[in-house]
């Protein structure tokens, strides 16, 4: 038994929601009747799979031999010198196969799909990272893959669309609603309901009806397990703060998970502040949202006075979503985690800083967390240690950043 497999055995099932999928007042299973039976089938299959040592062994093997885990923990000394204050460590999820944490969950769920005898996988994607990870896992396991992607996002992330197609996936353009991530989720769910016999819905974040938030967290929890052991070794102690970007919140819940019982470690999620907290111009659910129900779960949702979902904006397609994972809502309500936001401009500045001082191009999602760490480091002082989840790499974003910097340059001329 590998170390990772051993640890997984102790972690899976350790912190389940209640039987109805609630984390305190959040979560649940708000689905049309047509989805109830498939969701119940999924829940049964997942609980059986995670209790099966053979399944855990295969998942651990894929994480290690295929995805390239464990990922490195890097002490960003030049960035620290620039900011002043606390030591900053980066958990390098950008170094995984396909370049983001998304592969952890995609491999876990694709293995589950195969175990359930499904031959076809549908997935949604925003930035394209989950779509690429799903297409990759399906290619590896011989499953048909259909990815729904908002037309708006397809234009923003053309490179990832091409990658998915090369990997053998069909990418379907979603023209309904705001033509972004939430509309892609609606469409993927519609597909699943219509072809439930052979189809598995591979949801990419810690969102949606139970058991998705639990399952995604457990597949992503490897991030926190590795990072906790690595920082104990490198820094000789636990960090003062763990900082992670939060869209749906899968990378954040994955790294937070290992530190939840370490009461002295602050857990900080960074949402997308976009152009500022004005309706329609951001995606900071804790700053501008209200409790509601979206896509199967009760959580904080950006909505108007009539309960319709507000459009969102972020320079980062992966954070551009109107609801947050229900366990984050619970962690915020209970006071265990805190949630802040970084603006588009903050993220762009952090993207440039990390490139120049560390030679690392972060995904714009991850750049939000870096931006907050750069604010936090001087505030916490030189004795403190900050752990940042660098959830993905930024190759996909260079064109967006170039365009934005170009426009800013012209504006200042």
């Amino acid at each position, binding site marked *: 038994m590998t170390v990772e497999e051993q640890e997984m055995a102790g972690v899976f099932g350790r912190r389940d929601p209640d039987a109805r999928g609630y984390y305190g007042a959040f979560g649940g299973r708000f689905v*049309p009747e047509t989805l109830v039976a498939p969701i119940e089938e999924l829940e049964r299959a997942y609980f059986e799979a995670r209790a099966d040592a053979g399944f855990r062994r295969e998942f651990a093997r894929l994480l290690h031999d295929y995805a390239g885990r464990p990922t490195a923990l890097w002490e960003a000394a030049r960035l620290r010198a620039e900011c002043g204050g606390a030591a900053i460590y980066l958990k390098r999820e950008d170094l995984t196969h396909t370049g983001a944490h998304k592969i952890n969950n995609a491999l876990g769920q694709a293995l589950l799909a195969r175990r359930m005898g499904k031959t076809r996988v549908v997935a949604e994607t925003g930035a394209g990272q989950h779509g690429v990870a799903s297409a990759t896992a399906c290619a590896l396991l011989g499953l048909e893959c259909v990815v729904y992607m908002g037309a708006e996002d397809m234009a923003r992330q053309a490179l990832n669309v091409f990658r998915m197609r090369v990997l053998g996936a069909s990418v379907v353009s979603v023209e309904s609603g705001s033509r972004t991530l939430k509309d892609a989720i609606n469409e993927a769910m519609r597909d699943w309901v219509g072809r439930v016999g052979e189809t598995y819905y591979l949801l990419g974040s810690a969102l949606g009806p139970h058991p998705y938030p639990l399952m995604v967290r457990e597949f992503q929890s490897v991030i926190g397990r590795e990072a906790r052991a690595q920082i104990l070794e490198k820094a000789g102690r636990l960090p003062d703060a763990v900082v992670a970007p939060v869209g749906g919140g899968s990378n954040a819940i994955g790294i937070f998970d290992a530190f939840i019982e370490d009461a002295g470690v602050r857990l900080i999620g960074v949402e997308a502040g976009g152009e500022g907290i004005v309706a329609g111009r951001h995606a900071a659910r804790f700053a501008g949202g209200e409790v509601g129900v979206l896509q199967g779960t009760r959580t904080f949702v950006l909505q108007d006075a009539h309960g319709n979902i507000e459009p969102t904006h972020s320079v980062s397609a992966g954070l551009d979503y109107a609801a947050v994972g229900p366990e984050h809502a619970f962690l915020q309500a209970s006071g265990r985690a805190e949630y802040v936001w970084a603006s588009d401009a903050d993220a762009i500045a952090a993207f440039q800083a990390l490139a120049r001082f560390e030679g690392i191009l972060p995904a714009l999602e991850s750049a939000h967390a870096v931006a907050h760490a750069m604010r936090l480091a001087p505030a916490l002082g030189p004795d403190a240690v900050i752990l940042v989840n660098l959830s993905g790499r930024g190759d996909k974003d260079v064109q967006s950043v170039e365009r934005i910097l170009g426009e800013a340059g012209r504006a200042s001329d």
Partner: protein
Amino acid sequence: MRRIEAAFTALRAEGRTGLVTYVTAGDPSLAITADILQALDRAGADVLEVGVPFSDPLADGPVIQRATERALAGGATLDGVLAMIAGVRAAVRAPIVIFSYANPILRMGTDAFVARASAAGVDGVLTLDLPPEEAGEMRAALDAAGIDTIFLLSPTTSDERIRRAAELGGGFLYGISRLGVTGARAEVADSAAALAGRVRALTDRPLALGFGVSRPEHVRTMGQVADAAVVGSALVQVIAEHGASPGLLHEVERYVRWLRS
């Protein structure tokens, strides 16, 4: 006797197949929806379902998605739908059922919604994404106001869940005859008969079957195994095609009379 129960009691007494009609409120406008409800009532619809437009209608197919987008663009809200129903209630004979996603109702507040629905004369509420497990609070509030909670059944619904829906729900059970999202189909699925057979063996509650009804022969097929057929997307399509024309109400009335022929 509540209005929905009375409607189904009369259908059984007459040995007739009922017709439940669905329209998206606010398409093309709330004022015209009020006229459409009266036209449906004149044409003999037995239950009127009124869909509340919601920005993320994940259980609906393209026809109702488009209607929803038009309704939202025209400014229709749950507030406006309730006011429209209050205005038209006295002019229609058939029971009125609100068909909504959970979030607009939760945003208004369950108690405030139920008070307003009751004042408007709403007879039943079907909340698509509140299955019985999540519907407890809503059902208690509706019950106290004398409004029926309608639950959905699908071919994948277990016998145990059918029993629970029959026990917890009121009015009628709404069986969807096909897997998948709403939308008119050329043929009505055989699975309707299988679902109806299971429901009949478990409960006496009236049963309406939908999702795929667009022609009179579909209504008759449903009538062989259930109390009523539901027409949704096909009717919404008729409204979409004639929305701007002065002949809209005539076309709606003609279509529903044809379905009942």
